[in-house]
């Protein structure tokens, strides 16, 4: 199966009009020695129905969350309800099959959606400027670190161990290029214990953090200001329904993983990186920014702006190398969040917090199950279990639950458990019952 419309007759006619007799002649510039004799070394094309069959087989070899595997796993990827409007609207073909809005006159759809998305990200995070999305939470954090380094001229970055370990790993991987020093800051009873002195470019904290604990963002902000550093906060957009915004608590840059709004779990992607900062940093903003303006007739219009930050103009001096981002996921984020609305966002956070409280209390009543931290939590919490967390997870799978994510060595083991608004009391009760058996 192929998607080339040309008939043989048309190809011949096109060639003839150019005075050629074969398509091969057009490839004359490719040295003979480089020519592939046998074409692409892949099986012949499949019909649409056969591709579907192949994908059925892949899907059947997975075990998705759902009725047969009730999800209590989070760790940066959450099992929230996605309302039907998200797919119906964000995945309309006009949004799906558009390119980056280079011609604003015929791209007001994507541009206005991004303008609205930026507005919402700023409101969630309590900041002034947000970009049109980055790849994921980790890449947003990398960009935030880069911004802080550039803004302060300092090379050391303090990163709390409460930040998602994968994100810290990505920051470390990419710091090999930029060369700044990443200093891990340990936790104490689940909360970051900052050093009192130093000259970091930034303090990086996640709240609620990887263990689910609500961090003292305000205090971190004061410390950052006193050290002349920026405060970078990794925040959860769902928590914005109940918690004070990082911006209001002193954050200079806020990043986040946008997955909870509009993105299915899908093995971890595509999600989207949220990024917002104070207005003073706008010229260092990575990625695309949409602004409002007017057209020649004075009508309101939107356009990508401050393009001179970007790589296609600034090249090696650009604020970032990002070009393609996750716009479609930003549109899905917009639709999901707009559907929730002001009251719905709060209600969502509240329902997560209630389920988490209910589940946590019940689990801590199980013999041998201990809290990893006593700090307040919102949608996720960690426990220590009498048998290794990995074993618990495997046993719970047999009972029909994805019980959570086993914590690594740096947290001294333990199991990280998330409870979203999807979890019913009956499911939680059944989970606890199965858990009692699994930890023995």
């Amino acid at each position, binding site marked *: 199966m*192929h*998607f*080339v*419309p040309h008939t043989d007759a*048309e190809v011949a*006619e096109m060639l003839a009009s150019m005075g050629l007799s074969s398509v091969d002649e057009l490839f004359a510039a490719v040295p003979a020695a*480089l020519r*592939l004799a046998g*074409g*692409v070394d*892949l099986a012949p*094309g499949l*019909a649409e129905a056969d*591709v579907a069959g192949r994908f059925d087989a*892949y*899907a059947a*070899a997975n075990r998705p969350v759902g009725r047969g595997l009730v999800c209590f796993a989070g760790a940066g990827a959450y099992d929230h309800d996605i*309302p039907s409007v998200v797919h119906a609207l964000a995945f309309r073909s*006009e*949004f799906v099959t558009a390119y980056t809005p280079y*011609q604003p006159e*015929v791209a007001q759809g994507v541009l206005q959606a991004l303008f609205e998305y*930026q507005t919402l990200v700023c*409101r969630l995070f309590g900041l002034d400027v*947000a970009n049109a999305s980055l790849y*994921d939470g980790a890449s947003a954090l990398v960009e935030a670190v880069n911004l802080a380094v550039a803004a302060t001229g300092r090379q050391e970055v303090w990163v709390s161990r409460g930040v998602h370990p994968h994100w810290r790993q*990505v920051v470390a*991987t990419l710091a090999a*290029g*930029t060369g700044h020093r990443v200093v891990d800051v340990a936790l104490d009873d689940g909360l970051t214990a900052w050093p009192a002195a130093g000259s970091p470019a930034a303090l990086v904290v996640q709240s609620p953090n990887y263990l689910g604990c609500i961090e003292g963002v305000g205090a971190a902000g004061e410390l950052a200001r006193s050290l002349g550093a920026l405060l970078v906060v990794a925040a959860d957009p769902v928590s*914005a329904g*109940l*918690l004070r915004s990082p911006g209001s608590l002193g954050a200079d840059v806020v990043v986040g993983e946008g997955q909870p709004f509009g993105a299915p779990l*899908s093995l971890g*992607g595509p999600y989207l990186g949220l990024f917002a900062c104070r207005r003073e940093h706008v010229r260092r903003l990575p990625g*695309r*920014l949409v*602004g409002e303006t007017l057209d*020649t007739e004075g*009508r309101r*219009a939107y356009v990508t702006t*401050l393009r001179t930050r970007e790589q*296609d103009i600034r090249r090696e001096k650009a604020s*970032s*190398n*990002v070009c*393609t981002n996750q716009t479609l996921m930003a549109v899905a984020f*917009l*639709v999901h969040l707009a559907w*929730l*609305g*002001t009251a*719905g*966002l*709060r*209600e969502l956070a509240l*329902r997560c*917090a209630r389920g988490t*409280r209910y589940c946590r209390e019940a689990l801590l009543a199980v013999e041998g199950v201990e809290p990893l931290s006593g700090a307040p939590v919102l949608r996720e919490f960690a426990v220590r279990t009498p048998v290794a967390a990995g074993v618990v997870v495997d046993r719970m*799978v047999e009972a029909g639950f994805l019980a959570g994510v086993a914590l690594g060595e740096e947290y001294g083991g333990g199991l990280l458990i998330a409870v979203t608004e999807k979890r019913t009391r009956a499911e939680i009760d059944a989970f606890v019952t199965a858990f009692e058996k699994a930890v023995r």
Partner: protein
Amino acid sequence: MSTGSAPGGRATSAPLMGRDPEPTLFELSSPGRTAANFRATGVPEWSAEELVPAGALRDEPTPVAEVSERDLVAHMTRLSHRQFSVDLGAYPLGSCTMKYNPKLCDDAVARAGLADVHPASPPALTQGWMALLADLEDALCRITGMAAATLQPPAGAAGELTGLLLMRAFHGAGGQGGRRRRVLIPDSAHGTNPASVTLGGYEVTQVPSDARGCVDLDALAARLDDDVAGIMLTNPNTLGLFEEDIVAIAGAVHEVGGLLYYDGANLNAILGVTRPGDMGFDIVHMNLHKTFAVPHGGGGPGAGPVAVTDRLAPYLPGPRPVRTAEGPSGGGDAYEWAYPEHSIGRAHSWHGNALALARAWSYILANGGDGLARVSQAAVLNANWLRHRLRGTYDIPYDRPCMHELVASATNLKRARGLRALDVAKRMLEEGFHAPTTYFPLVVEEALMIEPTETESPQTLAAMADALIRIAAGTGDDAHAAPRTSPVGRVDEARAARQLIPTWDARPT
């Protein structure tokens, strides 16, 4: 009504009905309205105050918007009608490969068995995904002539940076980490290349193009030294031309111990014809969202896997899905997640843009080896036919067989009638086509970079050529005032930057 909010059911912003601006979500809001609803759970209804410490609890709800589902649907549907897309018509944006994205691919990935898989699931639960990713990796290696790949980079630029970090790791392992500090880049390169070089911790050394639009071999030689970590090239290059001397270039770079990086944005031209591996490249990124019909989504998500030769494979990011010795017949899982021996580490929160990767794989499967070869043949045929037709009307700076795209220039029109590339682009919109890429590559003045792609028919091409010729001849409407047919006219970009309004809340009141 007293809220003064905008009427969500009025459709004058849909181009079918009128040319008004579409109100924002915030204008459509009315206090107390909502679309949200939540499943019944039976969980005890503790109050926010009981759940969150006072210091952390916000005083007021975060203002989002207060709209009905009906108004939200109408709003987004109207916005969609204000947006051009491949599904509406041809989108000949050079370097972007805006081909038609087959609908079967949407359906292939729309399965609960793919979409509802938690990324932190134990591997026993994700064997299907891992098989899929491993199959895709294998295919990409066959297509590029490489040994191994990482699927983590979520876009081309991320792939570039990953590739440069691989370069670093390679040189570092060879004890040359400190010495190798420069990366060569042609002056025609895409902006992500130099930006990535900086982020990779290297300095950019620009290599000029020669009169034929290719890397100037003498200039290259002059810039090669043992402080060169490598060179980044696209081939065909951003002028749409095949670098005929690629073997010589590879030899020269390898000679000084440098590596060759292949920017795969233009891979659509050479599928089944030749492979970066055969040309001598060591590292290749692919833009699956260009070559393999992952739709661009208005700016993303994409996917930018990086494939490498054997000697670079140990440095690839992890974790990767790897086939185990045992497999289901042997009792265990067929695939496990593993880090290569000297892995540079993790390059994505999870495993890359998995659903986008799956989508590309469905496209590759549907096309097969035969179909992919046909893709490039038709892409190159289309671009050359167009070049042939436009010749004489537009300046064609390097007028010889191009590959999948051609770069024309409006310099002659500018001289003759004050018509800039920008004007040509805006008039193209009136002709029912998206505009070509303009002012790129930077080495061509008033550049118009046209990539018709293989999915446009000869009839569409002919109409596109006619439109471009009409515009050049000035026989239609005046291009300076274009576009007149779109819901907004030319947009004031300078004003946007001068009076920055990045959010609804930042509007002057």
